[in-house]
């Protein structure tokens, strides 16, 4: 067996044991913190699909994270205030149902990703990094100045949305939902990485001439990867909004894009489970360093710098060695 497999299993186990322990020790906040890590992990897995497998360095994934968040915020807000979302040409009501919200988040993010991706993928390299950043900034400034849904104040949803048969306000039950979604997303991404599409996408990242020479255009591959990536990150955004029962334009900020990128790089670019490790480590650092000093960002910066300079390949690179080719 490969070491990477052990590491993957260990990660999933840790994420299972910690909340269970916290539940028995009556430390609900630890559960909330772990939920946060799991949701960030989903966002990171989403970005990793474009960045790790497709080599698309998107500095604007906050756009999808935010869209997912606002999908939740807007639907739940209308349900909360008993006002229809839209009356013409047909009535759309708000909803408090999580599955409906997730589906909306996924579809909306995917649609936006089709548009943004189709435009952004005309560029490459630094230009791609910057145009994705610019699109996310457009969403950021738009939501800040768009009064209907709270502008910069954001939207508060007082009670978490519903999932059939569960009490979502109970931290451990909400955690269970997020954990299962993470598992599903990981399963999908793992399969996709080893599928025909995954092989072609990876080849396109390594060598565009090669993929063209075997008769496949890289643009469609990239666009598909970008859309899937955006949809997953959008789903994470909806969960994040439900965790906080709150959405605001901060979800669209460029720092959010940077953080999602950090999860991926900390964990290991192109490793299916990399972002899970990265997000968990990030939350741990934030939590531990925050207690050390008011100036804890300095330490965070130093650690990030250390990872980039000396631990290439992130945590997975450190513990599982160079990626083994899949046979």
């Amino acid at each position: 067996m490969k070491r990477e497999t052990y590491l993957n299993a260990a990660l999933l186990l840790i994420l299972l044991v910690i909340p269970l322990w916290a539940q028995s020790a009556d430390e609900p906040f630890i559960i909330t913190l772990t939920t946060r890590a799991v949701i960030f992990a989903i966002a990171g897995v989403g970005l990793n699909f474009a960045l790790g497998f497709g080599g698309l360095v998107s500095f604007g994934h906050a756009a999808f994270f935010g869209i997912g968040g606002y999908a939740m915020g807007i639907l739940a807000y209308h349900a909360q205030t008993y006002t229809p979302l839209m009356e013409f040409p047909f009535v759309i009501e708000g909803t408090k149902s999580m599955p409906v919200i997730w589906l909306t988040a996924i579809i909306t993010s995917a649609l936006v990703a089709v548009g943004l991706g189709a435009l952004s993928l005309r560029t490459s390299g630094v230009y791609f990094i910057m145009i994705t950043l610019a699109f996310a900034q457009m969403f950021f400034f738009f939501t800040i100045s768009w009064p209907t849904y709270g502008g910069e104040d954001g939207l508060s949803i007082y009670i978490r949305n519903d999932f059939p048969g569960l009490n979502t306000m109970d931290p451990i039950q909400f955690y269970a939902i997020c954990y299962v979604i993470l598992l599903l997303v990981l399963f999908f991404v793992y399969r996709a990485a080893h599928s025909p599409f995954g092989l072609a996408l990876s080849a396109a990242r390594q060598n565009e001439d090669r993929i063209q020479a075997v008769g496949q255009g890289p643009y469609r591959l990239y666009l598909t990867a970008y859309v899937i990536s955006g949809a997953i990150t959008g789903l994470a955004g909806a969960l994040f909004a439900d965790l906080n029962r709150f959405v605001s334009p901060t979800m669209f900020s460029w720092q959010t894009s940077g953080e999602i990128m950090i999860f991926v790089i900390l964990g290991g670019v192109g490793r299916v489970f990399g972002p899970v490790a990265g997000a968990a480590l990030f939350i741990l650092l934030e939590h531990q360093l925050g207690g050390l000093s008011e100036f804890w960002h300095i330490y965070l910066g130093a650690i990030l710098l250390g990872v980039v300079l000396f631990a290439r390949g992130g945590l997975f690179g450190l513990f599982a060695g160079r990626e083994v080719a899949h046979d």
Partner: protein
Amino acid sequence: MTDPILDIRGISKSFGALKASNNITLDLHPGEIHALIGPNGAGKSTLIKQVAGGLTPDSGTVHFAGQDVTPLSTAARAQLGMGRTFQISSLAMEFTVLQNVVLGALGRRGDVFRFFRPVMKDKQLLEQAHTALEQVGLEDFHSFRTSELSHGQRRQLEVAVALTLEPKAFLMDEPMAGLGAEGTQRLMGFLDGLRQRAPILLVEHDMDAVFALADRISVLVYGEIIATGCVDDIRGNPVVRTAYLGEEDAA
């Protein structure tokens, strides 16, 4: 005589004042190896790009298998059956040897937008891949990472990938470059047989190889075809001797 598979009709391409391709006409018939030679900077790479796609000529057309492919992308031309190998190895270096060849077979089959089936367990693809590896003699190396291959092995792998595409014609850009004498011999033997499966447009520096293999030779100098003919014609052509071979001797 049969219709040519590849028919390049009067293509020209300029970069500013530089005429990289000047009214080039060239064709490739079934069963032949047509070699394209010329000194450095003659415009061979520019010509190959216009044939394979990626660079649109200013004027003129490229016909392939009876179809005008001038407006088509590289990928579309490959789909039609243009099997290309590159001057500088263009392989997915992180992949294993087998993955690279499976990629070729997959590209040929065309169903890349499948997200759930493990591609490396696809019997049909694996079979085609292994066959191609055997043909170029790389079967023993199938589990090697591509970046671990020697220069010559990468060349062989490029050919193997091109084979999986079951092309109607091969476009080979200096496949012998960097191969040792033994490697060159082996590849030459292989190409010799290959021409029966599909004709080859061969851009090559190695004169011995060209004269030994080619059915016809075209000489490209300063963006123009100065001569086309069989090996003996070219050998005896005084224009070619001064413009090209003489230069080669001096160097």
